[in-house]
């Protein structure tokens, strides 16, 4: 994994600090060209991995990269699935089973439809889950997706429910079908590590909030530092600036001082911010 990954919250009006800022960003990135401009700046600054949701609009970015292989020889996607809001709204509209049926592939994929229907009837979570993963991955065909992530909303729900088998299903499918490494995003990193270890998922890739003020580091900042020091896993830090609550230099210096951080994922909307973050990471990354 690269040291620095660019995320996509800023492109979709996700801002953990302010609804006003979120809306301003949604307006600014309404046209996909504006998103691609920022990704171009990142690519040219050496930030070539895009950690993104499976929002429909990401499909346009994927199309663009696929159409321009000479411009983006090293462009890498780290898809994060599912894009939860589309499922949540569908559940409100159609109920649990109705929503499930809505997202299973149906256009012309008779086989998948039958597999999906059978899986629903047999309460076969593996069958349903793998079909949903395949549906989400369609937009990335023929593109590099060496790590595929399960979003924190789902990871943490499964973790809370004790639905541990689902982590194994996800990991297996991502490895065998996509030859990719499974990644897990969580707001409860120490607790998740225990479960993944019990499941025998060795040296897992885990992305969690890691920031100096302990923002959304459930279980406490000490438990996180302890896990980074003593546990075997590949850590990706997100929310390192705690949505702007920490000065950039201070934030990056602190994260880089921790052991076992393999990557940092950050959001930026301008070439200047991307280069500034890259330079800070170069400056503070442990040699």
């Amino acid at each position, binding site marked *: 994994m690269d040291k620095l990954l660019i995320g996509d919250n800023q492109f979709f009006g996700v801002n953990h*600090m302010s609804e006003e800022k979120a809306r301003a960003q949604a307006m600014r990135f309404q046209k996909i060209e504006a998103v691609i401009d920022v990704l171009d700046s990142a690519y040219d600054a050496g930030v070539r991995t895009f950690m993104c949701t499976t929002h429909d609009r990401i499909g346009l970015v994927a199309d663009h990269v696929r159409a321009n292989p000479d411009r983006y020889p090293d462009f890498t996607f780290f898809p994060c699935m599912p894009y939860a809001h589309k499922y949540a709204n569908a559940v409100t509209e159609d109920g649990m089973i109705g929503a499930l049926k809505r997202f299973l592939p149906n256009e012309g994929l008779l086989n998948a439809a039958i597999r999906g229907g059978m899986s629903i009837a047999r309460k076969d979570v593996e069958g349903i889950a793998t079909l949903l993963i395949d549906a989400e991955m369609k937009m990335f065909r023929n593109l590099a997706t060496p790590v595929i992530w399960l979003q924190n909303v789902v990871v943490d729900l499964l973790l809370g429910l004790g639905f541990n088998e689902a982590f194994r299903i996800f990991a297996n499918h991502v490895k065998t079908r996509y030859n990719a490494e499974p990644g897990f995003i969580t707001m409860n990193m120490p607790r998740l590590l225990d479960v993944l270890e019990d499941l025998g998922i060795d040296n897992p890739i885990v992305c969690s909030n890691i920031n100096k003020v302990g923002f959304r580091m459930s279980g406490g900042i000490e438990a996180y530092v302890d896990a980074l020091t003593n546990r075997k896993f590949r850590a990706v830090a997100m929310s390192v600036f705690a949505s702007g609550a920490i000065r950039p230099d201070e934030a990056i210096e602190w994260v880089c001082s921790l052991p076992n951080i393999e990557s940092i994922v950050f959001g930026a909307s301008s070439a200047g911010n991307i280069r500034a973050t890259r330079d800070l990471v170069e400056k503070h990354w442990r040699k």
Partner: protein
Amino acid sequence: MIKVAVVGLGKMGISHLGMIRAHSGVELAAVCDSTGYVLDVLSKYTGLKTYSDYALMLDEVALDAVIIATPSRVHTPMVKAALDRGIHVFCEKPFTLKAGESEMLAALAEEKGLVTQVGYHNRFVGAFQEVRRLLDAGAIGTVHHVQAEAYGPVVLKPKGSTWRTQRSEGGGCLYDYAAHPINLVNWFFGMPDSVGGSVLGKIFSAETDDEVYGTLYFPDGKTASLSVNWSDESFRKMTTRVTISGTAGRIYADRQEIQVFLRDGAALPGGYEHGWNIRYTTELTEEVDFYMRGEEYTAQLDHFVKRIGNPALPAANDFRSAAETDRVIEMIVEDAAQDPARTGIKPQQARKRFSLFKR
């Protein structure tokens, strides 16, 4: 360890289940739902003890508390059955569809000394708690007006029938969305004397409302405007916000931030200055032990669990306070049914004055 069951495994029930099962002070003793499907999946993959018969579960499992997340229409008998057995109850909102029943259940729980709570999670949002703190400190002087709003993208086209599409079942924008800002107004300012100009509009739904507007009148003369629309796709997800105007300043708050303007001469609470003050969720939010979908959801369940262990803790969203919100909802339904568009004041017809010039 307290023994808890979760009843009703829709969106809210599943989410409560995930959070309460992760709580260190709770033993998840059983789950109950009327449809076998989700139960079977949970039983197969998580080993939970499942019931499709609520009464049977209450008979067989010795519970300390129950979390009820079924449609509101069936809350009253389910809550009462639990209270009658001496079980503490956390119930999803809106509490019941008849304020009289809500008040009856509140009285029953008080008589039995049971802990009760309703899932108005906004009272556990740091920014809204800060609003309450500022109001208690009198920071913006005498409040004269409140704007309470909620918007989101739930119903964006006509669609088939579920309980959520029928007001008689507790579905619709009023019960699902408007209950939240109404509850915040109740929390900040208590009960209004009356409501007026209520609109329960349909945009896409056939049997319930998609938008809610109206005015709440308070005994001291202050007013609250309600503006709620769950068919607004310009919002990525539900947003709830309040804007409070007072003689010494103004407060705006949503889940993420609070913006406070304090006039010269306003009594300054600690950490505030005259002019604009902006605070974000990052500094207003207390961390929780287990995060799933917002600290406030974990915090409200944690508060319920803690109150069972220590009933001396202050109540938050108890049945009595949720009954106020149900009462306001009932007033809005009644006012809207009188059709203010028809019964309201019309432009005066000046017929007589001009009659001299007409035949």
